[in-house]
């Protein structure tokens, strides 16, 4: 198979895809948000249990392609025990890596670094970002005091594919 392909479907990515973490719904979550990728119709639900600004539990449900499922699984793994601030910053680093603005070395993204190869397949970048955009909307909603909201994946950099740009410019941060 092609090298490009191998760099996208890295061992660790396929591993997350086949045995995704965070698939077990939390007994209790403080905020949950559903993200939707209108290009493919895939959906992901990110739920968080939060105490004193610290993420104590994460679920990452829904169906999607290998990239979105793997990304959601990594999300569930990496966020465990992080503060909301840290979660935001990881999301931002991940977005920047996916858009080639930083290299994996410049951030501490763990397994997420394995998704770097998706860059070679621009239309799939939004698959990788879907769980993270959904997460950010969840955090934003949580901080507003809300409990549930819908979202779409976004990709202002890539610009221009339907349904991938948010209305509010604030949301453009991921």
């Amino acid at each position, binding site marked *: *198979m*092609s090298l490009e392909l191998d760099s996208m479907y890295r061992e660790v990515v396929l591993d997350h895809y086949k045995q995704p973490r965070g698939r077990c719904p939390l007994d209790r979550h403080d905020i949950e948000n559903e993200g939707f990728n209108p290009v493919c119709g895939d959906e992901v639900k990110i739920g968080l249990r939060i105490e004193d600004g610290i993420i104590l539990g994460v679920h990452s449900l829904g169906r999607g*392609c290998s990239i979105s499922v793997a990304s959601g699984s990594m999300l569930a793994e990496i966020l465990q025990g992080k503060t909301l601030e840290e979660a935001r910053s990881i999301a931002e680093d991940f977005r920047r890596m996916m858009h080639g603005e930083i290299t994996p070395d410049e951030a501490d993204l763990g397994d997420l670094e394995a998704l770097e190869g998706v860059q070679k397949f621009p239309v799939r970048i939004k*698959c990788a970002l879907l769980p993270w955009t959904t997460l950010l909307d969840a955090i934003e909603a949580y901080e507003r005091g809300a409990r549930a909201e819908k979202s779409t994946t976004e990709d202002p950099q890539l610009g221009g594919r339907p349904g991938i740009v948010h209305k509010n410019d604030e949301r453009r941060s991921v």
Partner: protein
Amino acid sequence: MAESSPLDVARIRRDFPILSREVRGKPLLYLDSAATTQKPQVVLDALMDYYTHSNANVHRAIHTLGEEATAAYEGVRDKVAAFLGGVDRRGVVFTRNATESLNLVAYAWARPRLARGDEILVSEMEHHSNLVPWIEAARVTGAVVRTIPVTDEGLLDLDVYEELLGHHTKIVAVTHKSNVLGTINPVAEMAKAAHDVGAFVVVDGAQAAAHMPVDLNTLGADAYAFSAHKMLGPTGVGVLWARPEVLEEMDAFLGGGEMIREVHMDRATFNEVPWKFEAGTPNIAGVVGFGAAIDYLQALGMDKLNQHETQLTLYARDRLEEIGGLTLFGPRDAIHGGGIVTFWDKDVHPHDLSTILDTHGVAIRAGHHCAQPLMRRLGVVATARASFYCYNDRDDVDALVMALHECRKYFGHVS
């Protein structure tokens, strides 16, 4: 054993310059013609010839370029009229695409005639373009959209259709051929039943007109819509056909230059049909290029093209079924469909499939194919679709099958 194709595909392929390009280091294998087709050199030549010799605005110029541009543009109207079985040229309206054609009918024919409680029957296998305009027309007028369901075989449930038909039925909106299932619907029969209750029949011909002979004198459609880009023509050209009397009865749609007769500051009278519906400068070059596409298709023969695609589709279904792990949608029966194979791999998401195939140079489509209600009916979010045209042959199918095997291996499923 294999019937030989009525088309000389090897020769045809040489007419399509894009087919010699490479994708990610592999020769391009284009299996997404149901989305849009590639263009033969003659179409590109017609575009270039227009722009380098006759480019001018149409209809109103006295100068030579204007005369040539008008003759070329209006000449294509004659070609389209002939292509549709020899209909009256005044029934042929040029639009941007099938979608605009369908909206034109929904705005200018349907909206003024619909009232609360009226019913619009729309099939469950419609492309969004023949569904959203009716949802919106219903929303605005208080009419109701009712669904003609799809059977497990991927056909329209005609029993339910007959039951739904009644004096409330004002419009029946149905596709001639599904872009997902390949199903060819019995439009003539359905139109007859619809006309018996006085309903107006709008047919989405985007897939059918491109792939089989269509005779609008006998089909029974009151309005018929399709796109040039799906039949070797340029992007930005669609056709709405309706009988001239129907067009004359219809309200105007877009207002502006070309479509008027006399304009005062507070009132306007409209031009004759079909120009009444062609407001502003049309896509002149696109229409001229479409003329060359029609000539090309006529030279191939629409019946031969259809026969070729049907053979190829049967072959593809057989080969895909051999793989195992794939679900194939749509009727197998050649009378009911062709040109399209839509499938679902239980182990590999359609978009992963599509990405992996792309690294083999194979372009298929993955997604809901703008037919979300049908996806729901099939119980999937998205599917993979391979679609064929005059430039595809069995070698392409074999290459697709090989690539699919690789995909499954890649995801660790030995098939």
